[in-house]
Structures are given as C-alpha cells and as structure tokens.
C-alpha cells in the first residue's frame, strides 16, 4: 500500500561512544534538547502501565525523536511541557519517567 523502503533504523541507534548516558526525560532542565532512546516501564515501579507506554509511543515519543522541555509547572517542576515532533504535551513526572532520553 505504501512504500516500506528501508530507512535508517528507527529502533534506538547505537549509543555514540562520547554521548552521555541516557537519563529520564523528567530529569532534563528547561530548554534542554534531547533525543528519545526508548519508552519503557521505569524500574521498581508497579508493572501495569503497558497502556501508558503504548500511548506515549502513539503521541510521538518514539526512538530517535527530538524532545525539548518548554516549561515546568509550578509544583516543584511538575507537570512538564515537552515539545516532541512539532507538538507540545503536558506530562506529569510519572509519565516522563517512562521516557529515556539522551541529552544533546
């Protein structure tokens, strides 16, 4: 139906040797740019959030996508306004912790 011609692999690119280690999206500061590495269940937290992971992927938090924190809410940095692929979303810390990013 549509072309499936090969494109650079979307699944997380190999971490570059000099790149800093991936961190949670929730730990970025305002204005900081990053690249999504993966969306996954945060360690040590209850494991029934598969739908949350799927939804985060659906709204655009896919590997290699560029993200940037636009603003932090007044509640100790919560919620976060995150720009991803041309759209801005407000996420609570809990959701943001599901997203692993590589600061740029």
């Amino acid at each position, binding site marked *: *139906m*549509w*072309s*499936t*011609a090969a*494109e650079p692999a*979307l*699944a997380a690119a190999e971490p570059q040797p000099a790149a800093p280690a991936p961190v949670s999206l929730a730990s970025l500061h305002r204005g900081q740019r990053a690249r999504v590495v993966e969306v996954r269940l945060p360690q040590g937290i209850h494991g029934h*959030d598969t*739908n*949350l*992971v*799927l*939804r*985060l*992927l*659906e*709204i*655009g938090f*896919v*590997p290699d996508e560029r993200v940037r924190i*636009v*603003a*932090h*809410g*007044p*509640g*100790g940095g*919560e*919620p976060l*306004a995150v720009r991803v*692929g*041309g*759209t*801005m*979303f*407000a*996420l*609570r810390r*809990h*959701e943001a912790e599901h997203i692993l990013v590589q600061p740029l």
Partner: protein
Amino acid sequence: MSAAALAEGDRRVALLGNPNCGKTALFNLLTGSRQKVANYAGVTVERKEGLATSPAGRRYRVLDLPGAYSLNADSADEEVTRDVILGHLKGEQLPEVLVCVTDATNLRLNLRLVLEVRRLGLPMLLALNMSDVAARRGIEIDLPQLSQRLGVPVVPTVGVHRGGADPLLAALDAMPATIPAPAPPWHPPTLAEITETHRQVREILRVCVREPEVDRRFDERIDRVVMHPQVGMAILAIVLFLMFQAVYAWAEAPMGWIEAGTAWLGEAVGATLADGPLRSLLVDGVIAGVGGVLVFLPQIVILFAFILALEDSGYLPRAAFLLDHAMGKVGLSGRSFIPLLSSFACAIPGIMATRVIANWRDRLATILIAPLMTCSARLPVYALLIGAFIPERTVAGVFNLQGLVLFALYLAGILGAVLVAFVLKRTVGRGLHHPLMMELPTWRLPNLRNLALGLLERVKIFIRRVGGIILSLTIIVWALATFPAPPADATGPAIDYSYAGMLGHAITPLFAPIGFGWEICIALIPGMAAREVAVGALGTVYALQGGDEAVAAQLGPIIAGQWSLATALSLLAWYVFAPQCLSTLAVVKRETQSWRYPLLMAGYLFAMAYLASLLTYQIARSLGAG
C-alpha cells in the same frame, strides 16, 4: 439514531481525527446550525450529528466522532470513536464514508492515526485541515503523491473559512456508493507495530511534504510568560478574576430583567384570573418556574463564552497545566479548576462546564464536589442569618465579625470539597495513577462562528434537557406548598396545612437534634426549588407580607427573637453542605446519564450537612448558646 431532520436516504459520513485538529470547526462549517447534539446510548459521551449539503445538492449525515489519538482507546471518548468505526457500538450504524481530519501543520502526529484507520479498509477520505495555516508557514504537501501513497483521496480544507469544506464535499460526491461492511477484527497494536507505523509516517512525510524549519518564536515567547510558574499564575489569577467579575457584573442586569419580566407577567396574568388554584398554578408554579429556568441563562452564556474562547485560543489547557499539581494533590486534575470556580456563581453552569475534563473519573469527582462551592443563591440565606445573629463588631482591629463568619462559611465549603475529593481518591480512585498527557495546542485566535455555535449548543442543552426538569420540580414544590388548601377557620399560615407543612412537621423530630424547629423544617421544603426561596418561605411561615426585601427585613428581628444562636449557626452549617437545590441534582442526572450519581450526591451531602449541623448545634449549646 433517528434524527427527525435527517432523512434515512442520506449518506452517512463520520469525521474522525486527533484532538485539536480543527475537526469541530470543519463540522460546524459543513453543517452550520443544522446539528443535533445528544449522547451515545448508555455513555456520557456527546454525540454530534448534522446535515451537510454539497454544492451539487447531495445530502450527507455527518457524525462528528470524539477526538482520538488512537484506536487503542484510553478514554470513554476514544472508546466511542473506535466502536463506531468498528461497528461495535449498539444502536449506531456503520458510517459509509470515514473522513480522517488532520491538522496539515502537524501531520507527523496526525498521520499515525490515519495509517491505523487505513488498515481497517473502510471507504475513506483524508482531509488536510488548516491547510491555509500550513500554506502560510510554507509547508508544501504533494497531494497526488500523498493520495497515491495512502490509497485514499486527499483534499485540503479550511475549517474556519466560508467555502473551506467545498473540496471535501466535492470529493464525497465523487466517492462511489458502497454498502458498509464491518471492519476486519481489530487488535490493540503492539509496541513494535506502533514504532513501525511511525517509521511509515516519517517515510511518507519525507516523500510528500516539504516543511521549512518551523518558526515557533511567536508561540514560545507567549508560552515563556503564560506558563511561567509565578508570572503565569499571576496572569491566570487576573484572567479568572476578570472572567468571574464579568459573570457577576454582566449577568446581573439581564438576570434582573428576567426576574422583573417574570414578576410583571405573573401580575398581568394574575390580574386577569380569579383567585384560585388555576391562578396560583400559572403565577406561582408555571411562570415562576419558567423564570427560575431562564434566570440561569445570563450566567451560563457569559461563563461559556469565556470558557469556549479560552479553550479555542489554547489558553485553557495551559491554565490546566499551571494548576495540575495543586489539584492533583486531592486527586483532581488541572481541568477541574474552572468548573469548580464557576460553581461559586452557580453549580449548574459549573457542572455543565465539567465537559472540558476528558477523564471520566476526574469529571465525576469534580461534579460530585461542585455543590460544595458556595453558590450565590446561598447568600440571601447567609445574609439573613448573619444579619440577625452575628453582631457587627470589629475583630483584631481590622476584621468585621460578620465578614469573618461569611468567609468561614465559604472556607467550610472548600474544605469539605477537599475532604470529599480526597476520600474519592482513596476509595474509587485507589491505586490508579492517571496520567495527564494533555496536548498544549498552538495558540490561535478564537473563531467567532465556532464560538457562537458552541454557545447556542450549550443554551439549547440547558433549556431542553435541564429546563424541563427544573420547571417540573418547581411546579411539584409549588403543589406541595399549596395543597390542600387551609380550612375556612384556619388560624396558622396557609402553608402549615399543605403537604409541605405536613412533611415539615413530620420531619421535625428528625431535625430536633440539630436545633431546627417546625418553621425551619417547613421552609426547607420549598427551599428545595432554589436555596434563596427558603427566605421567602420563612416569611410565609411567619405570616409576613410584602416583597422579598421587605420580608427579609422583617424576618431578621423575628428570628433573632425566637431562635437561639445555636439554631442559627446550625442552619448556616446546614446550608454550607445540604443539597438544598433540586436543579443541581437534575443537572447531575443529565450530565451523568444516570440516577446513581445524583442520589449518591444527595446522600453524601445530606449526611455531611446533618453531621455538621449536629456538631455545630451541640457544641454551641454546650458553650451556652442554646
């Protein structure tokens, strides 16, 4: 499903798309005011259908499906959208053509849903909405190429311009008629499938769309201020202050006209009829009842004008962003704030405004606590009691004691709401973390046409669905307070002999522990029609004559002489919590589509009111105020 104005032969078209893609504006443009708003069977999701006519004269029944990011539903809205297009929703026919509406400036997000829906193989069209904005931003979209890649016709649309839907209507005319077949079995996508779809979206965008580096300077400059933790909050406070100032100030005059008009009509009708039950029914029942419905309209119209404009501009989600953390502490979300604040004017528009809350559990919690916000109808009761029992004295040098008591009453309502929200969070919402994940759309100028249609829709819903209930309840309360008529040798006030009087006497033992005498018990019954009616009813019980203000003025000294301070305080506590407003319960029934929640609300509010009054009365008495 059957809509009177919609002929069965017209083709059924469903609009589907992401939230914020301008779908509703396009729907408004297609159908104008030929819309019918109802609910989907058994759920509280709004069903909007309208009639569109193409320039060639063909007619379409257009269904505006709730906005969805995915078929893998995350909310009641999204479930409806999925079930309609899969043909799983009872009472809902499968659409003959699906129109996928996308925001042409944000295809990266929007195309994913298009691809997901495309796999179902239903007859489908793609509308690139807001194509004017896309063109202005220099976004070039290769329509034939995109159409070929997707295998569906693609048309540009502009939801906010006259004629902006013509290409879509022409394309619909050109679609071959098909008999809708149920979609193939659908399963929730896996992680790998979602990632693959995103890859396909990028590939399509690479081939079909040329987009210059997006200039977000304008948006970001506004956002830096509006979403700033301190500056943003200050702006929000100003916006809210102006909004409620306007609701109070602008609504006052039209409400006065409606009240005066009702009174004039009542007198005019009363003068032409002989004294008797018919005159009383028309004047005190029907005309007062219709007036009682219409009097809510000015506040509803002004409040919703603000809410719709703020929503349309993109400010409302940002306000929710700012308030989310504070509201989240008691298990609500930032979106609960405006409905709750509106409830300080009146719980009815407030509860209607909960429609902006997408999450059903959040919305329900907000509805349930809305009546605890001190509405303006409580003020006449408070004014009467405070004026009669609380001395005008200065406390701590600056505060007026009467003002302090009034403040305490407002505060008691808010604290009660916090408590209830917290209990709901710990019981109904226990263990559930619900994410915010709210889109903060690009700023845009509100469109007047959409604003007007949105307002009209709210007014229609209020008058048709809520007005009828309020009117019938007013008539029932009137009948209770009027029949049976007092005997010829009656000595007490007429209401004493009526069903309301009997009921009042019957419940008196129940209310004795909280210090209410039979006079108060009787006044509480007509007071169910609207809180402020209780003042007039007390006047009736004490056989006072004259208009509302004259009665209130005479009533003060009487109750100050006959009631104890403990009783007065207890009645104040009662009015903070008690569901003394059948109209509110009626609107909850309407908004939740069930009797369960209004009953639950009435139950918990009565329990809270009784407990608060009991504590107040007993403590006041033990302190010597009995």
